[in-house]
Structure formats: structure tokens, C-alpha cells
């Protein structure tokens, strides 16, 4: 069973990371997640596995609209709005955002005396079933209505 605090900590981690790195303000999305995932094939996703010391695993998937990803890249790199954004820049940026979000979450839930590990993010489309009781989905929108979704899954390797 997921810890009651996870949902709030995940939301805070997303908002703080996106605001501090990309200067993009997010508001929580109250629409149904299923509707937002309808055109998922056009979205950029990335996943990463983090391992704590007690054989608990945490999978994070960041799904972000191409338009919002482009806006974030333009903000961070200080680019012209018409600048060419390469696939490498997209992968690089979404990886760093995901690592920062996941790191903030893990730092928050891991006892100060324990060390946690992280895996290198892997680009995937629709990689996991996120409908289980051990998953959380946090959906946000930018001021332009562009969506970013963090999906989280906890599982044990025991």
C-alpha cells in the first residue's frame, strides 16, 4: 500500500523542479487522466528506476506535451522561439527534469541515514500499466494548457 504522503510529495517535487529549472508555472489538472492520455502517442515520455536500500523500487514516468517541452528548452537554453530543437535536446532535457523530480521525491522519503540509487532514464512510449493500486498519477497544465504528467509506481523485489 502506498504511503499517504507520496501523492503530496510527488506533486511538490514536480512543481518545484519545473519552476526552478524552467521558470514554468504549473497548475494542477483536475480533468480525468484518461482524457489527457488520449493522444499519448504524440507525447514525450521517459522512465527511470530508483532503488532504495530495503529492496523497494520506485518507477517514475514523465509524460510531457511536445509544445511544453519546447517551451521549457527555449527557457532553459535562452533560445529564439523559432530555434530548431533537436531530438537530443529533448531527450537531454526531459531526462534531467525526471532525475531532478525523482531525486527530490526520493530525498524526501528516504531516511537521512540511508543511501538511494538512481538509474539512467530510458526513453519509452507508454511503458507501464499505471492503473494499479501501487501507482500515482499527477497531472499538471501550463498557463497555455499544455500537459505534463508524472506517473509513479512502487514495487518490491522481495
Amino acid at each position: 500500500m502506498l504511503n499517504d504522503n507520496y501523492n503530496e510529495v510527488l506533486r511538490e517535487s514536480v512543481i518545484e523542479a519545473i519552476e526552478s529549472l524552467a521558470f514554468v508555472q504549473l497548475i494542477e489538472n483536475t480533468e480525468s487522466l484518461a482524457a489527457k492520455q488520449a493522444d499519448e502517442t504524440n507525447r514525450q515520455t521517459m522512465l527511470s528506476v530508483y532503488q532504495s536500500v530495503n529492496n523497494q523500487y520506485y518507477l517514475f514516468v514523465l509524460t510531457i506535451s511536445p509544445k511544453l517541452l519546447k517551451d521549457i528548452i527555449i527557457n532553459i537554453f535562452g533560445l529564439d522561439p523559432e530555434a530548431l530543437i533537436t531530438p537530443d535536446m529533448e531527450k537531454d532535457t526531459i531526462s534531467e527534469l525526471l532525475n531532478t523530480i525523482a531525486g527530490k521525491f526520493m530525498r524526501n522519503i528516504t531516511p537521512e541515514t540511508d543511501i538511494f540509487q538512481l538509474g539512467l532514464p530510458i526513453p519509452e512510449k507508454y511503458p507501464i500499466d499505471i492503473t494499479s493500486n501501487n501507482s500515482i498519477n499527477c497531472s499538471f497544465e501550463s498557463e497555455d494548457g499544455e500537459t505534463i504528467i508524472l506517473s509513479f509506481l512502487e514495487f518490491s523485489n522481495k
Partner: protein
Amino acid sequence: MINLPPEINTILVVDDSGMARLIIKQCLEIAGFNGRKFLEAINGKDALEKIAKEKIDLVVSDLNMPVMEGTELLDNIKINNEFKHIPVIIISSTSNPAKETELKSHGALAVLNKPVSPASIHKAFGNIK
């Protein structure tokens, strides 16, 4: 407050993410390292090659990188008599008090969390001249 060596002219920023390298460089400049020469490396192996070629005064490195990760880079610097004087700052998503203690035992000068900011650098090192 952590003391830095007085003469820091060349800083090597090590991270597999180009975005992270840019942000770290900008934060260091705003925090007071403006006017310094910045070099970049994409992993620990690349960093060691640059350290062998250029006189580096400060290494700022991520931990989680392909090919050679940050702890291995730190160990390689600190066991080498020629390079062990170079201060190494770790900036990582996975740092917490336990990790900070471990990294300092490996010779890290300081450990900062991502996302790094000019304020977090200033808090760690004070006024940089």
C-alpha cells in the same frame, strides 16, 4: 561555510546532460565564478582525459553518468598524486545526508543537491572573489 582555494581560474563541469552543464555553469557564474574559464566533460572518463591535458582548479561533477560515474571520477582524482589537490564539488539528484557523508569520505569538498541554484552555491561557499 566551506573554504575554496584562493586561485580558481579553470573550472571543469562534468555532467552527461548538456542542460545540466549549462545550468551549473550559469549558477556558478552568478554565484561569483564569473570571468573564469569553463570546460565541460560528459562523464568521468572524459573528465579524467581533460584533467590530464589542462590545469584544472576546480571540478564540479554529477554522480549518475554513463561510462564512468561521479564517485569513480572522485576516487580517480583523489588517488592520483598529481591531481588529488583539485577540489571536487558533487552536484547530484541523489545526494542526501548519508550520501554526503560517504562522498566526503571519498574526498569530496562539498555535496549539493539538484536543482542547484546561485543561492545554494553562495550558502555553501559564501562570497566568492
